[in-house]
């Protein structure tokens, strides 16, 4: 007979694991990936593959040769970072090498310098994305023209995102709300289709990986705030629904603000976090230098997450 195992109670465990959570997030990102491939063609697939492979590779190299700790690439967290990074860049050929730099920054600076998974204060994919946006402003805002589903030709004619166009004073009248919802608009490859993102988010909610608090408060705040602005002056400010479906609000609210590591734990804290993200996003979009503010908003709120955690405690049973 084997030796008896001894431990303190409890002696059973739910079948949850970090690995399962990460791979489920990856599953949830698949609809958005498929839409990106459908609209942007083979470029989207290649950029995604390069981003994922380089993220995993950098994590492996850093763990193996610099930190000299057991490698944890199988837990799927680097894959999530890679996919999210790819989703935040335009699907253009030049991205195929730029995204490698982004992966190095995301994994190397965004994650491993703090000690790896679970210890990073900022969402690694957003760190990579913001680094690229500042370092390669031209390439990062060169959007491929969306040319019907499954485009067969890849010219470098560039279009504008609805947000950029609006910033310059002209929202193309040809962009309808329905297009924006389905993703038939310009933009970073993962953020175009609100529908695909919502499908993934619904899956995550069902699997209890995310709760509704952050996405709803984020999107709700953005909607209400932009609606107020729009009601004040419909000419200067964007339609609130259009605001939600263009740019990265959906992707950010459902996948990046909800990142477990960098968001608050208590439900009340998550609501504060979501509201903060929503407010900052609309402020940056309307009065900031960039047409898009989701990444900055989330990173800023990431930085106050420890404070929110300190302040928002769960309701004690005994009080």
């Amino acid at each position, binding site marked *: 007979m084997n030796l008896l195992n*001894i*431990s*303190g109670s409890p002696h059973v465990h739910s079948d949850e694991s970090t690995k399962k959570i990460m791979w489920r997030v990856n599953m949830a990102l698949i609809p958005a990936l498929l839409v990106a491939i459908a609209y942007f063609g083979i470029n989207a697939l290649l950029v995604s593959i390069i981003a994922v492979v380089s993220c995993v590779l950098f994590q492996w190299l850093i763990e193996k040769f610099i930190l000299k700790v057991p490698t944890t690439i199988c837990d799927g967290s680097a894959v999530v970072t890679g996919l999210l990074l790819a989703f935040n860049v335009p699907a253009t050929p030049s991205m195929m090498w730029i995204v490698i730099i982004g992966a190095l920054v995301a994994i190397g600076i965004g994650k491993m310098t703090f000690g790896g998974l679970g210890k990073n204060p900022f969402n690694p994919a957003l760190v990579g994305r913001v680094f690229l946006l500042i370092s390669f402003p031209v390439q990062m805002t060169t959007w491929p023209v969306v040319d019907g589903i499954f485009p067969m030709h890849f010219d470098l004619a560039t279009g504008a995102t609805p947000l950029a166009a609006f910033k310059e004073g002209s929202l193309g009248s040809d962009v309808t709300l329905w297009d924006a919802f389905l993703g038939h608009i310009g933009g970073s490859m993962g953020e175009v289709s609100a529908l695909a993102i919502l499908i993934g988010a619904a899956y995550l909610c069902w699997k209890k990986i995310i709760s509704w608090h952050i996405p709803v408060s984020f999107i709700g705040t953005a909607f209400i705030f932009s609606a107020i602005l729009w009601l004040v002056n419909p000419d200067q400010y964007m339609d609130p629904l259009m605001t939600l479906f263009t740019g990265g609000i959906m992707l950010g609210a459902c996948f990046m603000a909800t990142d477990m590591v960098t968001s608050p734990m208590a439900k009340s804290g998550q609501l504060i976090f979501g509201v903060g993200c929503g407010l900052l996003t609309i402020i940056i979009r309307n009065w900031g230098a960039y047409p898009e503010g989701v990444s900055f908003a989330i990173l800023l709120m990431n930085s106050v997450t420890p404070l929110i955690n300190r302040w928002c405690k769960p309701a004690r049973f005994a009080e």
Partner: protein
Amino acid sequence: MTQQILIAVMVLGIIGAFFAVVLYYVAQKFKVVEDPLIDEVAEVLPGANCGGCGKAGCRAFAEACVAQGNLEGLRCAPGGDAVAAKIAQLLGCAVEQGEPQVAVVRCNPANCRIVAADSTSVVISDNRRSNYDGLRSCAFENTVYTGESGCHFGCLGCGDCVAACQFDAIHMGPDGVPVVDEEKCTACGACAKACPRRIIELRNKGRMNRRVFVSCVNKEKGAVAMKSCANACIGCGKCAKVCPVEAITIADNLSYIDYKKCIACRKCVLECPTHAIHYANFPAPPVKPAPKPEAPAADGASAAKQDSAQA
């Protein structure tokens, strides 16, 4: 252009001056008056904050020294006599010299090592009775059960002592019992405090670092103790009988050698039926001076025993 530069300089200058005044005022208002002697004493301390003195850290120790005005009952173990002398000089008081000490782990590595019945060979075997699967903490494992070896007094092997050591002087040995690095050990006593079973004891280093000690703290009756570990002290008292200086006492089925009295003759080592008495830093195994000198153990056994004794 010049005007702009001037404005900038003026604005910054005014802000700077304002904050300088505020800072000066605050510094005066909340000034903490402290005996400068505390700083001087803290300066000569090792600064490892090991807590061996029983204070929160080196600074707290310095405060205690200055408050008390002498070194009675206060000793910095890592610093030893040298530091004590320096502090005494600063405080202007006398200091008593202490015997240098070292941490000694009093558990046979019986988890894995059993001396065979004829005491001629050392059998290496995994003698675990169970597999501990919980939090790697001795303090916690101690509350769960007896431990992997089955001895309720023995080493649990999770390394709380290793974690407690500020001087990198104690490490887990290959047989699951910690090993003290005598060079690095400062006898601060942090490991002894961390051990939930009080296995580690501070003992005098002894002449030429030679020490003899009972490497067991099992207080159970002989038969019960033997069931848990073949090398347990069974409290038979043979060692006490042969000791020429009455350094050995038996209490609660356990033998204890008073390091202040022990002359390191090693007569007890030869007597012990369970090989629970270990010795450290002797050049050769002890030899029975009896009419017919007969080696008590083969070289292998003795060497191995000394190895573990050096632990």
